[in-house]
């Protein structure tokens, strides 16, 4: 009997140790790429099976890459691209994506493709030095929202995929950037310097009812709604360097996710809402990592 109890005890301890190890492993960042090139702007696609991101392919070219999460291999999304492409974003259902493409000397347009790579439209820049920024596709795939500089300000606009029917969503002093839709399409979160350095704001998708969500020294940028729309992941410099944070969708309960002496940035959610893809600078390299997202409240 005593032996049996000891066996149960040993088994219990073993289970606790194993469970702890599993938790630790799950909490550890998992490195997904190993080429180390400068990387930006992650976007999850294919129901979480693939990640599209931007890398500095050579000293003169930004290139879009697609990472298969199963075999951890990366391939160029557009192998024949000869000019820089960057800021990729997929629609929530993965059926189309948008990105920025350099189309001339200091000229960059938003290009929209379906998931087969067929071009659906292009939002062209204005004349002269002109480029659009940070596209986001509405969940109903009817419009694209983007940031664009005019009159010394960087505003948020919404337009059809050919650039027509442009509507102004955010027209304030300062820089407005990184708009992202909530899963239901009713809300946008974005970064803005209208009040100070970059902070995160939300507003209705028609541009009404703007509300500030963060207030910290240093920039809070690149917000992304979680798949259930209840939380927002973002990058913050509040603790001295770029780290990933999560807060509730109303801005409450900010929680630090990453703790790295180097830079963690460009987070996007996997569909399970429990993990984030990030770009981590580590020992001078830049790679994609998978990190656990705390469950929050």
């Amino acid at each position, binding site marked *: 009997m005593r032996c049996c109890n000891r066996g149960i005890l040993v088994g219990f301890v073993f289970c606790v140790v194993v469970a702890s190890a599993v938790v630790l492993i799950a909490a550890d960042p998992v490195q997904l790429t190993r080429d*180390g*090139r*400068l990387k*930006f702007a992650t976007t999850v696609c294919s129901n979480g099976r693939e990640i599209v991101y931007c890398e*500095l392919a050579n*000293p*003169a070219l*930004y290139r879009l890459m697609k990472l298969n999460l199963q075999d951890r291999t990366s391939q160029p999304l557009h192998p024949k691209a*000869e*000019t*820089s492409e960057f800021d990729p974003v997929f629609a929530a259902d993965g059926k189309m994506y948008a990105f920025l493409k*350099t189309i*001339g*000397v*200091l000229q*960059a347009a938003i290009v929209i493709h379906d998931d087969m790579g067929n071009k659906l439209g292009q939002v062209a820049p*204005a004349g*002269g*030095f*002109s*480029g659009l*920024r940070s596209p986001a596709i509405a969940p109903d795939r009817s419009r694209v929202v983007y940031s664009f*500089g*005019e*009159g*010394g*300000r*960087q505003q948020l606009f919404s337009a059809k995929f050919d650039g027509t029917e442009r509507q102004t969503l955010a027209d304030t*002093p*300062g*820089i407005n*950037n990184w708009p992202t839709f909530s899963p239901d399409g009713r809300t946008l979160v974005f970064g803005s*310097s*209208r009040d*100070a*350095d*970059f902070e995160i704001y939300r507003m209705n998708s028609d541009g009404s009812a703007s509300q500030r969500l963060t207030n910290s*020294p*240093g*920039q809070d940028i690149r917000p992304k709604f979680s798949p259930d729309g209840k939380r927002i992941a973002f990058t913050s*410099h509040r603790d*001295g*360097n770029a780290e990933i944070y999560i807060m509730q969708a109303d801005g409450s309960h900010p929680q630090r996710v990453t703790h790295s002496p180097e*830079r963690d940035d460009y987070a996007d959610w996997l569909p399970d809402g429990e993990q984030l893809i990030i770009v981590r*600078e580590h*020992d*001078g*390299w*830049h790679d994609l990592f998978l990190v656990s997202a705390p469950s929050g409240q």
Partner: protein
Amino acid sequence: MFDVGSFRTKTCGTGGRRSFLRLAASVPIGMGLSQAVGQQVERHGPRAKSVIFVFLWGAPSHLDTCDPKPDAPLEFRGPFHSIATRTPGLNFTELLPRMAARSDRFSIIRTHATSEPGHPDGGTMALTGFKEIPAPVQPNFGSIVAKHRGHKGSLPPFVSLARGIVMDGGRRIEGYGGGALSQAYDPLLVGCSAEGDVEIPALQLLDGLNPLRIRDRTALMRQLDTVPRTLETVGFDSWGRHFQSAYDLLLTPQARQAFDLTRESEQTRGRFGHSVFGQSSLLACRLVEAGVPYVQLNYSRHVEALNPGFEFGWDTHLYNFELLQDHHCPILDRAYPAMLDELQERGLLDQTLVVLMGEFGRTPRISPNAARDHWPPCYFSIWAGGGVQPGRVIGSSDKRGEQPIGSPISPLMVGTTIAELAGLDTQARAEMNVLNGGQVIDALL
């Protein structure tokens, strides 16, 4: 009199630029700055055995990097937070935390001004101290030091780290080399990849010597074995001095080692960042350690950012805030502090002058397309090591970063100070007939 009006420098082409800068020709640009104009600094030999001139080609925004104006109106100050440095009263933006943490190792000048609003002219002015026209083009600061020191051993006296002569679009910058001193004092051009592979373009001009990968010594020697046969084919007349120089240094083990970044630990290489600029910065340290007197470390070969086929430079007419945040500042903020640390740890910082600057600043008022254009009347430089007193803040710009308060500091004064610290005193400069009229920035010493 120094009369600065407004600037219209919205295009980067050679045509259409207009500047309303007027400098009274009768008074040098920096008159009044120094209380000891022409004063000789007492010394025994050069304070700087070597110079690393870090050229932020394309011109970084001073407001978004080292001269933030957090109290300026929103249309000027930009979106970045201002952080304290280790130097009392000196703030940088949050994009440069590592540099801020090392500000006690360098001094900063925030009152530079140049008369040249475009890249080709501004580049030549920044590298020579003089306008490109009238001919002849004056020599690069590095060429002056190279002539003064001479070509000793197998290492060249002047190395420019880039895959070619720095360019603005298709136009090369005439102040890249020896100019009036002759091509004999042009730099040896050396390229370095993000992976640390070193290329010497001069050797590519000969058949049988393709882009050189120094890390592969066996292949290198095999390639070099073909050179005599190649020479027999092409003739010795076409074997220019630079090819000889490159050939000589590659045949010398000590010289080859200076170019071989694989001799550094992975930790050291990572500290600089795996970017072209990061690994080039490490290479600059190795070249200085090996005895090269002058290294011009170019951030990029081209000024433009996001132009098809061109490297990403600091000319951020478009996406200024995005490029600084995502690309340029993370690279710079890793490589430059690592360079200071590395030189310090190798005991080289005291004898190596490190100067970091662009060719001008960028518009304090945010441009219509939410970026920043050229701004010649006000920009910054950072000086470390080699006879410079660290921790000083020299001069300041006005509330919006538009104009220097007090007398501005010219590129000619930059070159004169570099030459002075490298051992060319007033007499040596006069005998060489270079940097005429230049004054030393005494506040640095």
